[in-house]
């Protein structure tokens, strides 16, 4: 009797041990790059563009002995997950990033492979990409990324009908923009839609104005660690102009409650309640999805206006230059990775990207634009980017990732008056630059 009664206890103990063992086995992990399962792992931001990435991986696998595997992580979790695994055995061989500050900490921690050797063996790996775009993944003078996906310059979009009704032309200069704001206000619409609830759209106004007024050098200095740049006369001038624009009511009164990500600001422009919106080039396909008729008939776009007396070239652009593939130093198959990266300037890649609305930044893109879905818009963007003397990477991408939260706070607080000029300058100077 006694023996029988003890059985459940033994079972429970055994079960517990078994569970504990299986759990610790999970921790060892397999399938990661460094555990060397004979494959190269490509980690990407999970979204609609994965279709093309999978296609390229499949093409690569047809000829390569070392097979590639595409691992996707849902977009919202990508950065956190990447940061968590990058210094563990689960790290990928090749991974998606935004260039600039997004890879700087990894370079500093000596995790990434400089691509000099790859480029020496195949100069096309550099030459086949637009220089201003390739530049964005250069850290401390060494290239660490090969462009993939498409470029995303920020453009000034508008509702043609609203502008016509108010007797306004798309502005070429800052003064014209101010005049347009006045006329749109008189016409009873919000002059400029802004999804301030997301904060990053607000930041776009800062990065463009700074670029127009001071040229790209000021921000380059600041992000390089020279914090005095924020106190310069140009910096203060840019802030004054932003303040002036906000105070005239250009963005209305409730921009901080409006979001771009839930379609709020998009609808403001589409429904004719607002005239302009400053947004990345993905705006066009967003409008096309949300408000097809409007996008086809009345959606206009132009470049950010020039600023009189500014040191920046009006042809310069700001935004996300591109996404990049970077390579982990500890990859076991550098040759296979080099071969894989070559596909990023292949004709197949360019065509597939154009088909889903992305605009690749390779030199052969030109040939395929006219057969793309929106040739006129693609052409406009491509000409803009290829002729731009400089491409200002979005501030929150240029700074190390750990600065972005405080950067966003400062931008929002300056915009809604919680910080004055000095407060904003102090907040920017407090941002970590490495």
């Amino acid at each position, binding site marked *: 009797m*006694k023996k029988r009664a003890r059985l459940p206890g033994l079972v429970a103990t055994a079960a517990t041990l078994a569970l504990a063992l299986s759990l610790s086995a999970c921790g060892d992990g397999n399938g990661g790059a460094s555990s060397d399962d004979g494959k190269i792992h490509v980690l990407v931001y999970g979204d609609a563009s994965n279709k093309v990435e999978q296609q390229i991986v499949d093409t690569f696998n047809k000829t390569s002995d070392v097979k590639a595997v595409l691992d996707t992580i849902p977009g919202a979790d990508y950065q956190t997950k990447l940061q968590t695994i990058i210094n563990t055995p689960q790290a990928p061989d090749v991974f998606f990033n935004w260039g600039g500050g997004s890879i700087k900490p990894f370079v500093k921690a000596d995790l990434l492979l400089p691509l000099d050797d790859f480029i020496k063996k195949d100069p096309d790996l550099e030459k086949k990409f637009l220089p201003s775009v390739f530049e964005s993944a250069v850290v401390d003078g060494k290239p660490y990324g090969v462009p993939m996906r498409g470029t995303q310059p920020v453009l000034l979009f508008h509702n043609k009908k609203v502008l016509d009704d108010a007797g306004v032309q798309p502005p070429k200069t800052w003064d014209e923009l101010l005049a347009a704001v006045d006329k749109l206000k008189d016409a009873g619409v919000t002059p400029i839609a802004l999804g301030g609830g997301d904060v990053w759209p607000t930041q776009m106004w800062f990065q463009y104005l700074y670029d127009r007024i001071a040229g790209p050098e000021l921000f380059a200095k600041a992000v390089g660690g020279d914090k005095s740049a924020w106190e310069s006369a140009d910096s203060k001038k840019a802030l004054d102009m932003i303040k002036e624009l906000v105070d005239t009511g250009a963005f209305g009164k409730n921009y901080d409650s409006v979001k771009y990500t839930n379609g709020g600001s998009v609808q403001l422009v589409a429904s004719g309640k607002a005239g302009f919106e400053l947004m990345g080039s993905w705006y066009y396909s967003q409008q096309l999805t949300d408000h097809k008729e409007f996008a086809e008939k009345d959606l206009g776009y132009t470049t950010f206006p020039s600023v009189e007396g500014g040191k920046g070239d009006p042809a310069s652009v700001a935004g996300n230059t591109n996404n990049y593939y970077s390579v982990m130093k500890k990859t076991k198959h550098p040759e296979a990775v080099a071969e894989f990266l070559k596909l990023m300037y292949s004709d197949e890649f360019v065509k597939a990207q154009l088909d889903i609305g992305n605009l690749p930044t390779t030199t052969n893109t030109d040939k395929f634009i006219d057969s793309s879905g929106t040739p006129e818009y693609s052409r406009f963007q491509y000409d803009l980017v290829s002729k731009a003397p400089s491409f200002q990477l979005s501030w929150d991408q240029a700074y190390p*990732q750990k600065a972005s939260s405080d950067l966003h706070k400062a931008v929002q607080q300056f915009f809604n008056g919680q910080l004055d000029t000095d407060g904003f300058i102090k907040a920017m100077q407090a941002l970590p630059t490495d």
Partner: protein
Amino acid sequence: MTTQTTSARPGFVWALPAAVFFALFAIVPLIMVAVLSFMSWDGISPPEFVGTDNWSRLADDPVMLNSVWLTLLLTALGVALQTPLSILLGVWAAGHQRNRAVLSVIYFIPLLLSATAVSVLWRALLDPNFGIPADATWLFGDGNLFGEQATAIGVLAFVSTWQFTPFHTLIYQGAARAVPQVLYQAAEVDGAGRYRQFFHITLPQLRTAMITSMILMIVGGLTTFETVLILTQGGPGTDTTISAYYMYDKAFKSFDYGTGSAIALALVVAATVVSLIVVRVSGYDKMRSSMEGVS
């Protein structure tokens, strides 16, 4: 036979699986967080021991201090709004009125939605140009609910009330049903009206339920997170940055896991202390019978 009855009783070994899991997923991480709070770690480079740096920096950090105040404010608002509402609803739902079951099901729906869905829903409903504020400008003015601290906090309190009142109603409904009917019958004989019955019988009898519900509200309030993440992202600026969100912001957005861990640990301590205080003050620990006065 006597041996069988004693040994068949659940012994410590029965609790072992649960204990192991609890240790693995609660105790061990808690210890790791405690250790991490004395280190500087960005998630990539090896962690570095920095002593009490994280803690002393937090003590001087205006955002942290403000976040504690905001957390307490939101928790208090939650208790103040949800308690009366759920008591009234719960007592009502414990009765036998017509359509009660149908209505109960309807007001129960918010609880079935995830906090994320609820937040996304209200963010859209409160859009200043296309949501409710656009149609009720007499109430909302220019609709800048998320652009001002006071209204943003108001929205957060409202949304959690909307979501969690059904749950607490359920607690009160169960408790109200357990009140012995003889009490009401006796009161009626004595000539007490509905209001007197409510204040002198129902409410005192609900005391234990009230404590349970309030502890849950307080702990829930201290750890509120998703609503802030989705509705305001701690903004405008840092105006709605409650402690739990600040922890996330530090650890997972600014990759400062040391500071994040310190905030997390402080939250654990605070929630424990507050619960203990509520239990002690209310006399819940003495397990006084809710049937007192009956026997």
